[in-house]
């Protein structure tokens, strides 16, 4: 159980692709619509436990979730007509996940090679042409008391203090909420209208309905998560102090990208 919680956190920071890839690989599946549909519930239940992430991070999880919902809906309700854009989103997620898988694999190779064999640059030295060894002092008129003060101040001023959350992400989050609402409606309607499609082999109609109702409940949870995230974005300042980020990094053992690279 504890081990499980730790995993949620770890997988959590690796981002939506890390989580999704982990779930697919855990079932020893290849990346395709069938495997993504199979892990959608797992993905959503992990995601709902990521409540304490920043809105920007939550939004990247939600973006992926919305596509997974499409895939899942299609697998539950084969007569659900997807638009070209929706089909494109699904293909795009599969492709991106395959690309991420490549780098995820290579990063393990980089890890195992990094620092094993090292090529050293020469130490700092005053190499001279043949036979020359001179001690030099070569200043520059640009070095004055005042210029040094200005340069020091500028260097300090250029250190990052704020992180700007892209408005694009905020807008995407909101539209996903709308999308989930629409999707919920669509599924509900399909459920009412299309009982004939629930005659799969080995699965009774009742079982299918149980799956779909459970799925709708999960959608509602995700929708609620988005509402929380967007409210936070709407009411809060979209600038985040750098210090805050570092504190968050401190709280989550897996979120050490800034301090423990």
């Amino acid at each position, binding site marked *: 159980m504890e081990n499980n919680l730790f995993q949620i956190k770890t997988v959590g*920071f*690796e*981002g*939506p*692709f*890390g989580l999704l890839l982990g779930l697919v690989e855990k079932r020893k599946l290849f990346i395709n619509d069938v495997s993504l549909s199979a892990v959608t519930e797992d993905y959503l239940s992990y995601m709902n436990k990521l409540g304490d992430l920043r809105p*920007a*991070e939550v939004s*990247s999880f939600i973006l*992926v979730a919305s596509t997974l919902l499409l895939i899942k809906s299609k697998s539950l309700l084969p007569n659900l007509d997807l638009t070209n854009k929706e089909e494109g989103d699904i293909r*795009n997620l599969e*492709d*991106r996940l*395959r*690309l*991420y898988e*490549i*780098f*995820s694999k*290579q*990063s*393990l*190779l*980089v*890890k195992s*090679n*990094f*620092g*094993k*064999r*090292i*090529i*050293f*640059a*020469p*130490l*700092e*030295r005053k*190499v001279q*042409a043949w036979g020359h060894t001179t001690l030099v002092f070569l200043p520059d008129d640009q070095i004055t008391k005042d210029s040094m003060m200005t340069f020091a101040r500028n260097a300090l001023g250029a250190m*990052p203090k704020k*992180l700007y959350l892209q408005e*694009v992400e905020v807008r995407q989050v909101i539209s996903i909420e709308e999308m989930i609402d629409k999707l919920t409606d669509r599924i509900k309607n399909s459920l009412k209208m299309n009982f004939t499609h629930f005659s799969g082999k080995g699965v009774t109609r009742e079982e299918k309905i149980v799956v779909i109702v459970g799925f709708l409940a999960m959608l509602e949870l995700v929708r609620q998560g988005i509402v929380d995230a967007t409210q936070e974005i709407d009411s809060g300042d979209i600038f985040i102090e750098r210090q805050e*980020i570092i504190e968050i990094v401190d709280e989550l053992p*897996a979120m*050490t*990208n*800034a*301090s*423990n*690279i």
Partner: protein
Amino acid sequence: MELEKKIEAILFFKGEPVSIKKLEEILKVPNEEIVEAIHLLNNNLTNRGIALLQNDNHITLGTSPELTNLIEDLQKEELNRDLSKASLETLSIILYKNGASRAEIDYIRGVNSSFTLRALSVRGLVEKTIDEKDNRRYVYKPSFDTLSFMGIKSVEELPDYEEVSNSVNAAAKSFEEEIKKQE
């Protein structure tokens, strides 16, 4: 005296990366001759105590990767070999793509990579430069320090480089439009 010897002397004197363009200026010979001479120098330095590193139109000299332990004992500073998962992913993208924009990295990883990129920059493992193909955007490139830590003389020596880089570039093409939208 042959050109490759002059280049060797210049690299030794400078003790830091020198651009091919700079070598053309110093030696007043055309690009092709420099490139040819670098090739010869690289051959001369095979199986020696010194190695030639090539990265992004710059070259530099370093100690042979086979002598890691010997040289590490000579230097007093401690080396940091730890990289987080986020850093490893980001660095792998930059290495195998041989330079990537932040939008591309974010797109591939599915998360915002700006902190990871800053941490990698501070450690000198990546360099932020203006994209030669499009001067309105930046690209992050692998640094000589990264090659050094990987014990390779150029990115082509990375494990599975050609294979990975081919499949990545093929895949990346279809994403180009979408990445542009995010920039």
